[in-house]
């Protein structure tokens, strides 16, 4: 039996009251709920305050470059399909610097989980707009407000056929634990965009702001309905419903296309066939 305490407690570099604490707590509980031992998990992150989260729990970790968590996660999963691979970073890292990788990851559909700390602002660089900041959001870098429209990760993911698309909120712990656990168990790429405040730099999207908007989806919500999912993902303003917006089981996962990965043997444990190689060399004569 795995307990969330097995993932340890660490001192963090986060501001008091940061939404990251709630996310980390929910993540540990979700991992425990999935029965995953720390050594079975690989957490891959980029750079930013959110991307430090893997340092604050016990697991295998690759804390790489800003924006590049998904390519690293992809390579690691293909090299060892038996690992539970979770790519985890902030909204700037995943949707801004890593935007092309985000699209490519949704297209590939590896059996990985993408957790995005979405606080609509850059924290570690002290308060510039992020790809999900609302138009008009004023910062020192955008003194006349953000001119561009915000990126809608959930609508993009649903539109691209991502088989598991969810929205969480750190202020709704029970739902968030359940959501992350379901995303990890889902076979295929699962995206969970997690709403959270930045208490230091975002004075618009506060706990109160989220509390008013982040209500669970209706009990009779049909997550298998693509049109409904897309409509729900496109909702903005006073409603940011949390839960699984879209789920489609049985999609082929990327790893299955490779004969060498069928048995989930890590590539490093596969032999090198020198008789085959000799035949290949022979074919050039």
């Amino acid at each position, binding site marked *: 039996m795995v307990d969330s305490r097995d993932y340890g407690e660490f001192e963090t*570099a986060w501001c008091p009251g940061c939404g990251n604490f709630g996310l980390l707590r929910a993540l540990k509980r979700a991992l425990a709920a999935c029965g995953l*031992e*720390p*050594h*079975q998990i*690989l957490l*891959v992150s980029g*750079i930013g305050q959110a991307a*430090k989260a893997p*340092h604050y729990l*016990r*697991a*295998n*970790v*690759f*804390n*790489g*470059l800003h924006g*590049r968590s*998904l*390519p*690293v*996660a*992809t*390579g*690691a*999963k*293909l*090299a*060892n399909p*038996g*690992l539970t691979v979770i790519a985890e970073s902030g909204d700037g890292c995943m949707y801004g610097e890593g935007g*092309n*990788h985000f*699209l*490519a990851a949704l297209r590939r559909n590896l059996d990985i989980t993408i957790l995005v700390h979405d606080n609509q602002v850059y924290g570690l660089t002290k308060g510039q707009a992020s790809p999900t900041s609302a138009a008009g959001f004023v910062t020192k870098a955008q003194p006349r407000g953000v001119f561009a429209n915000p990126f809608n990760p959930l609508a993009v993911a649903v539109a691209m056929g991502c088989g598991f698309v969810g929205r969480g909120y750190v202020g709704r712990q029970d739902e968030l634990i359940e959501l992350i656990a379901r995303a990890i168990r889902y076979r295929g790429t699962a995206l969970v965009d997690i709403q959270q405040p930045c208490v230091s730099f975002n004075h618009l999207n506060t706990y109160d702001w989220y509390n008013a908007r982040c209500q669970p989806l209706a009990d009779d919500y049909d997550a298998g309905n693509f049109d409904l999912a897309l409509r729900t993902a496109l909702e903005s303003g006073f409603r940011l419903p949390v839960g699984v917006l879209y789920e489609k089981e049985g999609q082929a996962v990327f790893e299955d296309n*490779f*004969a*060498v*990965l069928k048995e989930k043997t*890590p*590539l*490093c*444990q*596969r*032999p*090198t*066939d*020198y008789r*085959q*190689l*000799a035949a*290949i*060399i*022979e074919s*050039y*004569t």
Partner: protein
Amino acid sequence: MTEQKNSRSHDLLLVIGGEAGQGLVTIGQLLCRALVLEGYEIVVVQSYHSRIRGGHNTFSIRVATSPVEAAATRIDLLVALTEETVAAHRPELAEKALVLVDEAWKLEGEKLLAVPFAGLGAEKVFNVAAFGVLACLLGLQRGRLEALLDKTFGRKHAALLQENLQAFGRGYDWAQKNGAAFEPLAQAPQDRGPRMVMNGNEAIALGALAAGAKFASFYPMTPATSILLTIIAHADAMGLVVEQAEDEIAALNMALGAAFAGAPALVATSGGGFALMTEAVSLAGMTETPVVVIVAQRPGPATGLPTRTEQGDLEFVLHGGHGEFARLVLAPGSVESCFELTRRAFFLAEEYQTPCFVLTDQYLADSYRAVPPFSVEGLEPVRPGSDPRSVSGTYERYAITGDGVSPRLLPGLSTHLVVADSDEHTSDGHITEDLSVRAEMVRKRLRKLEGIRRQWLAPEYDGPAAPQQLLVCWGSCRGAVREAARHLRQAGKTVATLCFEQVWPLVEERILPVLEQAGEVVCVEGNATGQFARLLRRETGFAMHRTVLRYDGLAITPDYIVDRLQASG
């Protein structure tokens, strides 16, 4: 022109020129196979425009009865698939050259052999009819070539094979009646044993397979793409996963993810793609993740000449990636070395847990040669990672060690936790801003250079001690430099060559005495600023007396070197 061919039929240059899409590479490759089967040595230079149809492309084959390792410049036999080819190459024709042209062009002039292509087959098989004419002129055995055509086209389509065999036969017959003006090739030794027809990129791919590579990722870029295409062709048989990434940034990060999880991994690209990879190169250095990066150079800056050759990215590959860390740069000088050094790069990358580079270029990438088959006898694959049983107590990914190399466990393969971080980190891999840890980690990572230097691949010295002239080079111009030295020796000079296949790190105390014992030291390289000459000066304090540089997009040839040395004194 310095070289006097006593009997040109022992060493001739055959050039096929035409537009992209006319099938000149097909007949070029067929000829290579035919010539090697008959015992000849070859050196191919491919020159092409960055387009799929049209333009002016050439496939040049230097054919010789004894070993050759460089390209030639005077054309003995020119096959013109377009009229433009004739004019473009007229200045390069040797005295007794012959030019195959289409009778329909109604060209007049010396050295022309007008072939009635329209009577030999449909336009789409003109290339194979030309192959027939050529085969006869060169004196190649008809039956063997028909078998070769069967092997090439037979698998695809019986009708296609028939049409090609017919065109080939008609070309051959026509030449037998009308083409006596050309002296056939002298017979090559028949005891050379089986040989492959292989170019540098194919050899790099096979070197990676021989090392036990299990993962490759790439974004297509000339002239590196064919490395990946070769690996992909054998991926299922050899148990590799290969992925075309969304960009080069993803390609290298993906390879690092795979390598972290234990798969020996490579990427291959050219300068522009490498520019995108540089942040991840630095990540490999910091996270101490082994990876092999192949950079096939082409002329820059920016998009430059996308399909031509240059050695202009030496300094870029030496320094690409921010911060300071150990790296190793190998630069093969032959097709055989492409195989051997790529293998070596995997072992060194794993041993020192750091990025290792193989630096090649378009000339070597596309240059077919006759190569004895690589032996797999006694080959072993890279063994990724350390044995978890060797770890007692809590595992630390970046444990401080005397040689800078820490035990590398692979995530998920034991109950130990493996933590890698691109931030400065403590020995357990976790982020830190403790500045004394920082200084200690910098020293640990750089200590790896001492081990790498101990395994230095010394440059190859050839020629008498204390020569009047020493020609220094690196990478793909090795063959041209060695042949140029032979010509200069024939002219009475004492000349030696020093060819580097490891360009970083350099062991300066073993290089300086070699440079100091020569009268004049000349650095020969394919760039405009003498990057290797500058590197040698920086590392040894020795300033080259002269340089021979080339940066017009073409390969350095023996003639090019000799002409410049003689012109300037």
